[in-house]
């Protein structure tokens, strides 16, 4: 893996959910390093804790969940120790996030152009909507939305789930965050669109952004990621560069996940 100092380092993170009669250890001691200009993939099956981990990075866990232990170091600074106000400054500006549920993650009464504008506005208070529209159109075209003008003027509920997902990705693309967390950005898209979006993520990392790609799809990982972590039941069971892991998977679970691909090949 990369030897450079990581932009974002998660150390021994533990997020538990305190239910009535038991404690669910969704994330149970996870450590990952995220590097500038690289795509770090987190792979795991449903319920493996990968989404909870990404929410924990931004301290977005709500009751009954709680981050019980661990550190989230952004440039060596533990963001769990920051005040609410300082944390708000990091959210969206330094670490941005693309959410998993595309139709729910866009406010139905806010137009798409406004959503995209706000993604930019967080970093750049001097940004004006009119100056940005051209860029928005191009970005929407790049994520495979062929009628950018109509989409920009639409409300999210007027778009399909797949379209909303691409809008979300487009929002991720126009932010200038240092770290972008993409939680299943391609889960409800056809393969062609998926390929286009992955290409955009690769382009994004080439500009120096650190991308965390959360997915259950090893095919997606093989195409785009540089480093990968396999997570199961809240624990990292395998880590390494994509090349290493694919060449020589050590853990049984990784092998199990890879089986379909191996058979296919």
């Amino acid at each position, binding site marked *: 893996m990369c030897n450079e100092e990581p932009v974002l380092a998660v150390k021994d993170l533990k997020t538990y959910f305190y239910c009535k009669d038991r404690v669910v250890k969704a994330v149970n001691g996870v450590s990952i390093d995220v590097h500038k200009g690289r795509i770090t993939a987190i792979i795991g099956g449903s319920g493996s804790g990968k989404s909870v981990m990404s929410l924990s990075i931004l301290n977005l866990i709500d009751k009954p969940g709680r981050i019980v232990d661990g550190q989230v170091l952004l440039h060596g600074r533990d963001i769990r120790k920051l005040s609410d106000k300082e944390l708000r400054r990091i*959210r*969206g500006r330094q670490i941005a*996030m693309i*959410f998993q549920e595309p139709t729910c993650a866009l406010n*139905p*009464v806010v137009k798409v152009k406004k959503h995209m504008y706000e993604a930019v506005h967080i970093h750049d208070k001097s940004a004006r909507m009119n100056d940005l529209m051209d860029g928005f159109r191009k970005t929407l075209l790049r994520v495979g939305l062929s009628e950018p003008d109509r989409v920009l003027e639409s409300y999210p509920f007027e778009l399909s789930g797949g379209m909303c997902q691409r809008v979300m990705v487009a929002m991720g693309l126009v932010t200038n965050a240092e770290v972008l967390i993409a939680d299943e950005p391609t889960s409800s898209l056809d393969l062609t669109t998926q390929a286009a979006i992955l290409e955009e993520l690769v382009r994004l990392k080439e500009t120096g952004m650190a991308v965390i790609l959360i997915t259950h799809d090893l095919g997606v990982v093989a195409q785009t990621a540089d480093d990968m972590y396999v997570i199961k039941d809240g624990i990292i069971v395998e880590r390494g560069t994509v090349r290493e892991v694919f060449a020589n998977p050590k853990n049984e679970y990784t092998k199990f996940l890879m089986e379909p691909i191996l058979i296919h090949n």
Partner: protein
Amino acid sequence: MLKSIIRKFFQKRSAVLGLIVALLMVFIGIFAEQVAPHDAYAVDISQKLLDPSAEYPLGTDQLGRCILSRLILGTRTSLFSAIIVTVIILLIGVPLGIIAGYVGGITDNIIMRMADVASTFPSSLLALAIVGIFGPSLRNLILVFIFLWWAPFARMVRGQVMKIKEMEYVLAAVAAGDSRFRIIVRHILPNTISSIIVYATLRIAAVIVHIASFSFIGLGSQPPTADWGVMLNDGRQFITSHPLMLVWPGVVIAVVVLAFNALGEGLNDAMTPTSEEGAVVKETGAVNV
């Protein structure tokens, strides 16, 4: 979306009619003195109990006052006090509902128990008690309605907020670094506003009827105030000889209440399809008068 709401609204004839009547009444209320043909308080016993004529389009009452002018001036007391009550219960109920729904926990508990207390009083009974103690007046009546009716608003808004704050776009807004205040103003309020508007419109109709009925039994506005309820009461004594005196204020109350209900229903229908928000208003029993 605003465009589609407006288009939908204007497709419904009763809603448009309601809007026209409501706006007309507000206009009449504002310019009551200019619109009224006579002084609503000018007593002229020689002209008492006249039938409708060119001079007095709706006739005169037992003191020779122009009924039309009194109805027009009554718009100010009846409709405007209803609007004032509604605006104030909005100003109290909406923020409390948002705080209760968004903050939750003990705060929610305190606010909702206060709402429970306010809801347990039967409004008519409490109004009777209050005017019994402090004397009958429109102001006391208004205070009673404000004291009681902020609660259903707060409860409705709280329910909506609790639903909306679980939506992923609120989480997305938190992830984007929005402050609590900004999330409430930008994400939660716009999503509840349609229910609030609908509910407020329907509430105005209910308040009009309540104020009129209390004035009718002599516990609200006091004679000689030009008030629809007071006029009904005046007409009572002449129900056999001059039934029109009773009919006019009755018709006006009915028309205004119908207009506001039609307006509220129309707004509800127009705003509903985008989400199921409108349904909440229906569940809360709307306002049946």
